[in-house]
C-alpha cells in the first residue's frame, strides 16, 4: 500500500496518477464510495473523508482500515493533511482531526511508500 498526503487542492490525485500510471477515471472518491468500491479500487482519494464518515457512524476506524487493507493490500490511498489549522471550537471537529490524524499515522507506518505533495510537486518522505 502507498500513501499520498498533502494539503487541500495541492494536486495529489494528479500526482499519483502520473507517478503510478493511472487515469483520473480510475480514482475512487472516499467521500461517497462504499467499502466494496474501495476494496476494488486502484487509487482512493479523500480517504480522510471516508474515515470521517465511519467516525460519524460510530464505527471503528482501525477495524475498517484493517479490513480494507486486507482485501486491497496494493491500494494507493490519498488523504488531506488536516491538522494545521486553528483548534476548532466544536468538540466533534477536534475529535475528527485527532482520531483521523492518528489513524493516518498508522497507515503511514504500514505503507511501503509515502509521498507528500506540495503545489503539485511530490516528494517521497518514506
Amino acid at each position: 500500500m502507498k500513501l499520498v498526503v498533502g494539503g487541500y487542492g495541492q494536486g495529489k490525485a494528479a500526482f499519483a496518477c502520473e507517478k503510478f500510471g493511472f487515469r483520473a477515471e480510475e480514482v475512487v472518491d472516499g467521500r461517497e464510495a462504499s467499502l466494496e468500491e474501495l476494496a476494488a479500487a486502484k487509487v482512493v482519494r479523500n480517504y480522510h473523508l471516508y474515515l470521517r464518515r465511519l467516525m460519524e457512524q460510530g464505527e471503528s476506524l482501525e477495524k475498517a482500515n484493517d479490513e480494507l487493507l486486507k482485501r486491497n493490500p496494493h491500494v494507493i490511498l490519498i488523504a488531506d493533511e488536516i491538522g494545521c489549522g486553528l483548534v476548532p471550537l466544536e468538540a466533534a471537529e477536534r475529535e475528527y482531526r485527532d482520531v483521523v490524524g492518528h489513524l493516518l499515522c498508522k497507515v503511514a507506518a504500514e505503507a511501503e511508500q509515502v509521498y507528500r505533495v506540495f503545489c503539485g510537486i511530490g516528494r517521497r518522505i518514506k
Partner: protein
Amino acid sequence: MITLVLGGSGSGKSEFAEDYVVGKGSLPRYYIATMVPMDEECEKKVLRHRDMRKEKQFQTVERYTHVGDLSFEEEGIILLDCMSNLLANELYRKEGRNKNTAHIIVSDLVTLASKAKELVIVSNDVFCEGKEYDAFTMQYLDCFASVHRELAKVADQVVEVVYGIPIYEKGGIGHETTCK
C-alpha cells in the same frame, strides 16, 4: 527566473524572501506591495513590513491589480508580497478581473517576471486546515490552490518556509529528493 516562496502565517516567509533578494547582490530591488490597507490592523502590518525592509533598500511600488502592466526603469529583482492579496483584489475589487482569474494572475506574473532578472513571489499556505467551508470560500480556495500549482509549474524554485527555515520543493538545495 521565478522563485515562489510559500509559508503559513508568521512563518517568516516575507523575511526569508527579502533576505534572499538582498543576497542576490547589487541589482535594483523593487518591492510590490499588494495589500490594500483597509483598517488599523493592515496599517500595523504595513508598518511592521516597512520596518523590516528599512535597511534593505527596496523601492516600494503599491499595486493591487494588473501587475503585468508595471514597468521599471532598470532591470532588477522584484519581490511581490503577497500573492494571496493580489488574488483577493483581482477576484473581489471593482477594477479586478473576476473571470478566469487564476489563469490571468499566472499570466500577469509571467509577464512581470520577463521585466526583471528575477521575480520572487510570496504567498500564503492555507491548505492544511482540514476544514470544509461554504461553497463561496471553497471556490476561493480552489482558485488559490490552482494559482499555486500553475506558478509552481513555471517557477524555477519553489520554497516552503517553516519558521524561517527554507525547504526547497523545487530547485535550490535538496531538490534531488523531489520526484516526478
